[in-house]
């Protein structure tokens, strides 16, 4: 199923990791990893354990069981800062971007380039503005003006700036938490393009999403989570888009939903609403069959 265990080439890998919160088992025996120049998609519905997995990978939580390996060596991350120092950058859904600050100030926050000496040591503003603009252009992001506040950017553009920043500061692994979920179709497409760009730069990308239609076009391998457990990791060759959709939704549950809708439809078959429900039920039935 997964060849992580054999290959030593994984940039980041977790091996049989479990995480408990009191009596709740948030993650159970999860194994997954990402190699350089690869997009690993982690798919799961709400409550599947995606957030816990992200926070474990990002160094916010420490796993209660299992091993965390960076480039084949076992590590214990102490903080998100520690993870970042080891080249693991996480871009959260709610973003580490400050809306009222300009793009270039955001881009360099916490790692400002300086010029001058002693008390005259100052933030190299010209360099920062120029570099921010160049780096964004390199990723194919053409902002009008890096002095504009981040708040004026669309959601997709903000995600893209965050990705460009992580790439510039030497991230080896990029963890993206639902980067497309709050976006429209076109904006989501923009972000997917930058994911591909990051892969082309040789980064390992862990792309966490609940949307198989976003994951399938860019993913190389897919790990599916359900209720804190892993269905396993599959390569793109092993899996069609339809398989992915079906596994994501859980075929059986879709079927149940289809029956339920059918019942409703029978109850008020004469109304227009009923007819619409019937159509929906049929479609779900189709998808459940795959």
């Amino acid at each position, binding site marked *: 199923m997964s060849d992580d265990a054999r290959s030593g080439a994984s940039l980041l890998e977790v091996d049989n990791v479990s995480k408990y919160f009191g009596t709740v088992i948030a993650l159970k025996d999860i194994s997954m990893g990402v190699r350089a120049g690869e997009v690993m998609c982690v798919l799961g519905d709400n409550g599947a354990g995606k957030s816990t997995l992200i926070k474990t990978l990002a160094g916010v939580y420490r796993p209660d069981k299992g091993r965390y390996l960076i480039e084949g060596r076992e590590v214990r991350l102490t903080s998100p800062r520690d993870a970042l120092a080891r080249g693991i950058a996480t871009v959260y859904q709610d973003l580490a971007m400050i*809306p009222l600050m300009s793009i270039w*100030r955001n881009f360099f926050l916490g*790692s*400002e380039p300086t010029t001058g000496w002693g008390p005259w040591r*100052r933030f190299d503003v010209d360099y920062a503005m120029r570099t921010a603009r160049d780096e964004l252009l390199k990723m194919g992001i053409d902002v009008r003006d890096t002095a504009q506040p981040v708040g004026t950017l669309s959601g997709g553009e903000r995600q893209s700036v965050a990705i460009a920043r992580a790439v510039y500061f030497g991230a080896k692994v990029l963890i993206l938490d639902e980067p497309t979920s709050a976006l429209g179709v076109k904006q989501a497409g923009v972000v997917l393009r930058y994911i591909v760009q990051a892969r082309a730069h040789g980064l390992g990308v862990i792309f966490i999403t609940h949307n198989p239609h976003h994951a399938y076009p860019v993913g190389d391998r897919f790990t599916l989570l359900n209720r804190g457990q892993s269905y396993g990791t599959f390569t793109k060759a092993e899996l069609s888009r339809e398989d992915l959709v079906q596994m994501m939704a859980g075929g059986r549950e879709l079927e149940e939903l289809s029956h339920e809708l059918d019942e409703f439809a029978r109850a008020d078959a004469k109304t227009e609403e009923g007819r619409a429900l019937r159509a929906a039920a049929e479609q779900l039935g189709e998808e459940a069959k795959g």
Partner: protein
Amino acid sequence: MTVTEAPAGARADERMRRAGLLRRLFSRPELGAVAGAIIVWIFFAIVAGDQGFLSTAGTASYLEVASELGILAVAVSLLMIAGEFDLSVGSIVGASGMAIALLNVQYNWPLWAAILAAVAFSLVIGFLNGLVVTRTRLPSFIVTLASLFIFRGVTIGVTRQLTGRTQLGGIDTSKIGFIEQLFAGHVGSFSVSILWWLALAALATWVLLRTRVGNWIFGAGGAPDASRNLGVPVDRLKIGLFMTTAFAACLVAIIDVVKFTSADVLRGTQQEFIAIIAVVIGGTLLTGGYGSAIGAVFGALVFGMVQQGIVITGVNADWFQVFLGGMLILAVLVNNYIRRKAAEAKR
């Protein structure tokens, strides 16, 4: 991609023009305060121009009032951009001034030593403010509201215990002309405190816009957790800014003590609120993450002009407080409007 498409640079430029001069002007936080200062000046120039408002003496008098408030406001603006309040600066003015007077008059310390001791004392107080705020994670509004009363109470208590009085006079500055020149001297007919004010404002603006610390101040106020994750030492930064506001309060106390050759336990009362109002008029957001030190300069200037303008025109000075409250509401409304305009998505 079409053949008619212009190169990236030209395209970016073409789209930028839509933002326009007006929006760029609107996106400056200090715009409201500059406009306010101009309006207030024109108003008093018309109403009180022939009563001395426009004379050198009149100008010097409102600049002097503005300068002491301005020294506080500039420091407070940095702290507020970083997302914290300091309600205790007025009490620190009283405490530091009294510390100088007690050491000099009661214990016969030389004035320069008393001043240095007061500076050290104020830095410790600011450090404690910052430490309590960052360690307990309580809102700084609450913590410094407590220290407002504690510092004032201790100042009154200790002074009365030691001297039986609440005012101490008799500080002799004649022997040390240098200190008098430095803190209470004049350049032409203008008080030297104006220079302190402008120098501090220039320094604060440079720090804010051209240093790493400045970037951290914006970041810490805008999103403290995100900044922390990016490696910004948010807690140390905030402690440093509390020490800065305390130092500014001490500087005002030194200027007052040297100028009046006396100290009063109640000196600086309510200055913290006026400083905050000046900062807010200057365009700084109450929630932090946005603002300017230059705005605070103009906010203080507005108050200096109004306070002296009311005196010159002979209007009952009671009305000053009405103006204070009214200006605060107006400034917040205008600033909210400006900020919405500035942050509006462009499509």
